[in-house]
């Protein structure tokens, strides 16, 4: 598979195991950006000339492609800069409905991007912010609904942890939340999940989801929010400006239709297109087969890591994707990452933007590997060699 990814093809010695941070880009992604600028570049949705119409068509084809991949309506896809922007925008848009007596729930497993916006929203409105504790054995996260009451306006949780790799049973959790309070708005951070599981949202109980293209082999700088149509109808615009209006006068403005009323300003059509083309390519290669391949390699990595005496967080059952955090006795994650770099192995060390989780685990940080379908056993073997080297130096 590495041959389809120019960076990996050009740097044959590189073992890139930081895919949870961002994935490498396939040739189709890079080529599609070039293709757009060389054949179709214009500001979409504005010009009346053929070139602009062409750009608009490409933009809307991309939206449709992504919506079909997730089994949702194309109007339910709103382009953003990424997951962080998406989650923040939802938090701002929902602000008017939050009252002092309300509560908002999030979890200790969250990336800061799905934690701080809700914590701060609750603070601004004097509402209560409740945090579900992370507990590996007790699986508290599957029982988020326990904390839900009649005043719970929002529950925000992750589809897949960028630290432990745990994949939550989104639909099961959501169903229980809605049973307790049908009005509670459910928001899921899908930054990681998209790259490890094929989603069918046609019958989902989730109201909003946020995604980043760059974590699923697409370009940097774009992402999208999925919002249930009936929720989007109730929502005020996130941003004001060009293209999102219907009519503007000195006194009043009215808004364009959904999804355009949520897409103010010029959207990066080249990247949107490259992302849709990338997904199309992944589907041709059979995404489920690719996901199975990374699952196999994950099992191999877990086995080899255990042999080195590494302490692995989670992964005691099968509800985990190919993201593995571990620690090695007496070796600081940063030292291991630097030594691994000498072996041309890219891995991640630190708190991974998840400090509440680090506090709960009572550690400052972890070493993390995240595996893609383009990785192979050789990459894992090099990692193990780097760990042995670090132990020799530092223990």
């Amino acid at each position: 598979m590495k041959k389809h990814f120019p960076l990996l093809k050009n740097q044959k010695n590189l073992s890139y195991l930081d895919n949870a941070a961002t994935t490498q880009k396939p040739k189709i992604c890079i080529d599609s950006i070039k293709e757009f600028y060389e054949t179709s570049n214009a500001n979409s949705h504005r010009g009346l000339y053929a070139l602009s119409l062409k750009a608009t068509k490409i933009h809307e084809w991309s939206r449709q492609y992504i919506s079909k991949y997730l089994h949702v309506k194309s109007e339910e896809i709103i382009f953003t800069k990424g997951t962080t922007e998406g989650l923040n925008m939802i938090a701002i848009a929902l602000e008017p409905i939050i009252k002092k007596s309300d509560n908002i729930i999030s979890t200790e497993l969250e990336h800061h991007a799905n934690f701080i916006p809700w914590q701060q929203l609750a603070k601004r409105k004097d509402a209560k912010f409740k945090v579900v504790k992370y507990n590996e054995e007790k699986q508290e996260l599957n029982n988020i609904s326990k904390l839900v009451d009649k005043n719970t306006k929002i529950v925000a949780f992750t589809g897949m942890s960028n630290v432990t790799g745990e994949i939550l049973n989104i639909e099961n959790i959501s169903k229980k939340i809605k049973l307790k309070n049908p009005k509670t708005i459910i928001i899921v951070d899908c930054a990681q999940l998209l790259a490890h599981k094929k989603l069918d949202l046609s019958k989902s109980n989730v109201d909003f989801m946020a995604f980043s293209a760059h974590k699923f082999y697409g370009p940097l700088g774009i992402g999208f929010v999925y919002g249930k149509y009936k929720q989007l109808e109730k929502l005020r615009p996130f941003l004001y400006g060009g293209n999102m209006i219907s009519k503007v006068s000195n006194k009043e403005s009215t808004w364009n239709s959904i999804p355009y009323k949520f897409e103010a300003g010029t959207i990066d059509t080249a990247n949107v297109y490259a992302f849709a083309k990338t997904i199309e390519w992944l589907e041709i290669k059979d995404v489920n087969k690719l996901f199975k391949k990374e699952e196999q390699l994950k099992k191999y990595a877990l086995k080899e890591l255990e042999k080195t005496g590494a302490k692995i967080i989670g992964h005691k059952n099968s509800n985990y994707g190919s993201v593995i955090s571990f620690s090695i006795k007496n070796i600081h994650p940063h030292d291991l990452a630097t030594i691994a770099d000498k072996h041309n192995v890219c891995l991640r060390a630190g708190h991974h933007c998840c400090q509440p989780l680090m506090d709960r685990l009572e550690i400052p940080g972890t070493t993390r590997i995240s595996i893609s379908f383009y990785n192979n056993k050789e990459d894992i073997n090099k990692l193990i060699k780097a760990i042995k080297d670090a132990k020799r130096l530092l223990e």
Partner: protein
Amino acid sequence: MTEEIYKENILKENKRPKNNHKIIKPSHEGEHNNHVCGDIINFQLRINKNIIQAVGWTGKGCALCIGCASILSEEIKNKSINEVQKLEFSNLENLIKVHVPESRSECIKTPLFALKNSLKIKKGK
């Protein structure tokens, strides 16, 4: 100066760090938290007539951070406050005899910032 971070001296200091303990009756104490990784170092000093008479430090960190804290704590013994205040990143590199890459510079700055913070914070008697 070497590009190789994990040289004998740093590794040795990391395994057996010097002055890695609290001291009796410190006059000054301060810490620094490396926000990149959560590492933390706390320095305690006993200063008399502007001269550092005793030094101790505690905390957790990577080999660079711990090694540097150890070397730094030896270096400042019997130095004046003025001399310590003048210490900069480049002095640290000279002290530990390693050229530290940008990606790891915070690791050795952590003990230095902790030390400088300790100069600012006088302990109540």
